[in-house]
């Protein structure tokens, strides 16, 4: 199967791998998993006082497409508001990385991870 250069780049040089302190009030953590392939994704956002995501980290166990999808969204969310981050669609991720149809679920996983991280942050702050 031929993968796009962008996908290979994110897979070989994943951005923002790691984690923040979960207890930190400015951090929102999202964890999701895809039963069909066993992939597990943890995605964290660090939000500043203005409600802007200033940093993001991820840790993903899964195939190359899942790693690339999470790497890409950690780049995308930086500088975005929470609402803007919530608006990220899996189709945009899939298109950017030119994911083959059988790997679309990896982009869904990344979208769900962002949503879970934002919800976790909002919950922490009683919003």
């Amino acid at each position, binding site marked *: 199967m031929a993968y796009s250069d962008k996908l290979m780049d994110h897979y070989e040089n994943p951005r923002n791998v790691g984690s923040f302190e979960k207890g930190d009030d400015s951090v929102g953590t999202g*964890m*999701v*998993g*895809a*039963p*069909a*392939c*066993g992939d*597990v994704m*943890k995605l964290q956002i660090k939000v500043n006082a203005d409600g802007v995501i200033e940093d993001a980290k991820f*840790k993903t*166990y899964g195939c190359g497409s899942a790693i690339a999808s999470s790497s890409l969204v950690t780049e995308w969310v930086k500088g975005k508001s929470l609402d803007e981050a919530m608006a990220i669609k899996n189709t945009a991720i899939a298109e950017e990385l030119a994911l083959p149809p059988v790997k679309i*679920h990896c982009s*869904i*996983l990344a979208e*769900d*991870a962002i949503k*879970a991280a934002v919800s976790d942050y909002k919950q922490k702050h009683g919003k």
Partner: protein
Amino acid sequence: MTTEFSRDFFQLFGLSRRFALDSQQLEQSWRAAAAAVHPDRYASSPDAEKRMALMQATQVNEAYQTLKSPLRRARYLLSLQGVDTQEETNTSMPLDFLMAQMEWRESIEEARDSSDVDALEALSSRLRSDKRALEAELGEALDRAADLDAAAVMVRKLRFLEKLDQEIGDAIETLLG
């Protein structure tokens, strides 16, 4: 033997429609059913009958494969009751379960990277006991509580465990091979 295609897989083997299953009885029923529709028995029959026998043989095997595997059996039981297990679409698993999944993956990776077959074998036996516990829970949810939503979550969990099982197996095979 006449097989009605409208019968479900349990009826096909004269089993009651539940998760708990006597695997010996399944095995025997399958052998008997498979023998009855075996293509060899229809070698001199008209083409239409041959085709019918072949379709029945396929159904009998599909039924056996489905009922033999706890995961597939549970999924099938849920589908008979109109419940989709959402294994392709539902990504929100209980947090503690996902944390445990991460730890499993880390342990497997560590053992693989240090070529530690004993550690992988230990993980494999721990996983098998986790799987047995989950299957017992699944039986409880399906056969006693009839809690179909809980059972669907358990099917998704079991799917993760099967994947881990496969990863550990692959790692051991690579190291020993």
